[in-house]
Every structure is written in structure tokens, then in C-alpha cells.
């Protein structure tokens, strides 16, 4: 609570640049997949309350920057509640997560989890890689092995 208030004060004072957060629904996720066809899409599900998610994010952001020009698109989807949007926005800005950065607005978490991958139980972090045709080709449950992810991307690009 104190943390959120502090962030709001900093945001109001312009000391922290809030990132734009785009709410994403089940339909929005399908639109994201459709719009990314022709690129290699890496989707990372994370949350501000998830320590390993926060830990791995800078490496994912660096990887996204390294391969963006070669056709990789990175989408980070925060699984935080709407009430934590300020904390999410602060982390997005601080970590320089590429825009648009998303925050969940799913109608049904269970259905969404199953839609992304039927074998996923909902543990975070969770990273999915889609090839240029939009086919899901790799998933990384838990913390991603960044070297393995980079090899996957290199093969797909």
C-alpha cells in the first residue's frame, strides 16, 4: 500500500515516467497472435509479485532489443490486478519493456490459461514462442533459460 502510494506520488511529480499499459482480453490475445504473423513472437507472462519474473525480465528485454530488427516481436503480459497497475507501469518503465506492454483483463483466467497452453496450470513466469506462421513451437514453464531461448529464436528467424 505504502509502495503504491509512493509510486503514485512519484508519477504525479513526473519523477517516474509511467508506461502505457494496454489491457488485453482473450480476444485481444488472439488479435496479438494474428498481428504478429510474419514475425517470431515471444510472449512472456509475468507479474510484479513474481520474483523470478522480475529477475528474468531485463534479459528478455535485452534479447528483444537484439533481435527486433531481424523480425522478433516481444510481448510482456502482466498478470496483475487492475489495482496494481501503477506498480506494473513503474516496472515496465524502469525495465524498458517494449511497448505496447500489456496487463490482463481476462474474462476467465482458467479459460485463458488453457487457451494459451492446455498443459499450463498457471504458474509464473511462463514464456511462449510462436513461429512466423503463428504456430506455437516452444514453451518455457518457469524461469526461462535465456541461452536456450536465444537458440530457439535464432533457428526460427
Amino acid at each position: 500500500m505504502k509502495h503504491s502510494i509512493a509510486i503514485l506520488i512519484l508519477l504525479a511529480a513526473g519523477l517516474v515516467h509511467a508506461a502505457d499499459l494496454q489491457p488485453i482480453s482473450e480476444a485481444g490475445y488472439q488479435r496479438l497472435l494474428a498481428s504478429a504473423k510474419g514475425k517470431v513472437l515471444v510472449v512472456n507472462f509475468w507479474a510484479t509479485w513474481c520474483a523470478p519474473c522480475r529477475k528474468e525480465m531485463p534479459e528478455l528485454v535485452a534479447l528483444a532489443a537484439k533481435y527486433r530488427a531481424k523480425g522478433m516481436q516481444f510481448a510482456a503480459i502482466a498478470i496483475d490486478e487492475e489495482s496494481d497497475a501503477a506498480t506494473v507501469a513503474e516496472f515496465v518503465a524502469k525495465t524498458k519493456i517494449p511497448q505496447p506492454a500489456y496487463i490482463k483483463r481476462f474474462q476467465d483466467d482458467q479459460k485463458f490459461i488453457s487457451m494459451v497452453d492446455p498443459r499450463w496450470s498457471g504458474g509464473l513466469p511462463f514464456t511462449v514462442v510462436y513461429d512466423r506462421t503463428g504456430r506455437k513451437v516452444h514453451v518455457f514453464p518457469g524461469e526461462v533459460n535465456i541461452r536456450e531461448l536465444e537458440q530457439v529464436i535464432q533457428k526460427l528467424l
Partner: protein
Amino acid sequence: MTTLAAFAAALALLGAPGKVDVIKATDLQGKPVEIRTAGKITAVIFISTQCPISNDYNERMKALYNEFHGKGVQFVFLNANSTESSAEVAEHARKHAFPFTVYKDVNNVEADRFSAEFTPHVFVIGKNSEVIYRGAIDDSRPADRVTKTYLKDVLNAALEGKPLPVTETKAFGCTIKRVKKST
């Protein structure tokens, strides 16, 4: 092997635990314990000291324990996180005045057997020692927005011998921090 294939293979290997006659864990003094399930309804709940989601359920877990323990449901709270020591688990239990015992699942042996992935992840074992439910406690992290009380409903149905309203659910949670095992 692709990561996707490896994931599938790992899950297939782990799969459903089949019959769970005995749950093996370690108490917070380091002593091995064996908890038998035959003839009882057992709720196994993987929890964490640090995961905010798991901690949001502390009061609800206490309420469930208080409601169902007296009705004959056996609860087994396991901490399988390699990053959370027995001392930390004991302090956490004391701080939150848990009325139940928490055990360590050293080397995440039971987490692997159950294919437990996150905290809090629940498995209900029927009187015949088969897993009859796996998933979430309810459908909302904020307690004031719960609309479906999965675990409570499953336990009530199991106690009354009625068909279960649900056998599997999913929810967002913190991944269990497993030890790294050589393959």
C-alpha cells in the same frame, strides 16, 4: 528435443501420480514423516512463505482447515520451495498463527510426484488414495471477489459421497522453486 517436447515429456513422465498411499515429507525439525491416506479424504496443499498469492490465501486456508479438519478431512501442507528453509517456514507458520502443521517437501519429491506447479496448488485424495481434484482453492486472489469455492465444494461432495462439482481447475500463481536435478 524442443522445449515444447521436453515440457510434454516431463509432464507425461510425471503425469498423474496414480495412487498416493503415503505422502513422505520432513517436519520442520528435519525428521522424516509419513502420512497415510487410505480411508481418509486428504487435502494436500503446496504453499509458500514468500509468494504473495499463497500468502493471500493464508486466512482462507486457516478457515478451510478449521471447517473441515473436524469433519475428518486430513490436511497436508507442504512447502516444496528450495529457496525457503525449514526455519523460515516455521517462522511464517508462527507469524500467521497457522492451526495446522506445515512440512518441508525436501528436493520437491512430492511436488514432482503430484506435478504440482505453483503455490497454492491443491490436490484432494479420496478414501481410495486416488487424486480426485487438482487445482486452485477458489477462483479469486482477492477474497472479496470469490465466486467459486472449488476446494470447499469438492471436500463437501467427497464427504457426502456425491459427484464432484469439479475435478481440475487452473489459476495464476508462483512457480514452485525446485532444486536443480541432473538428468
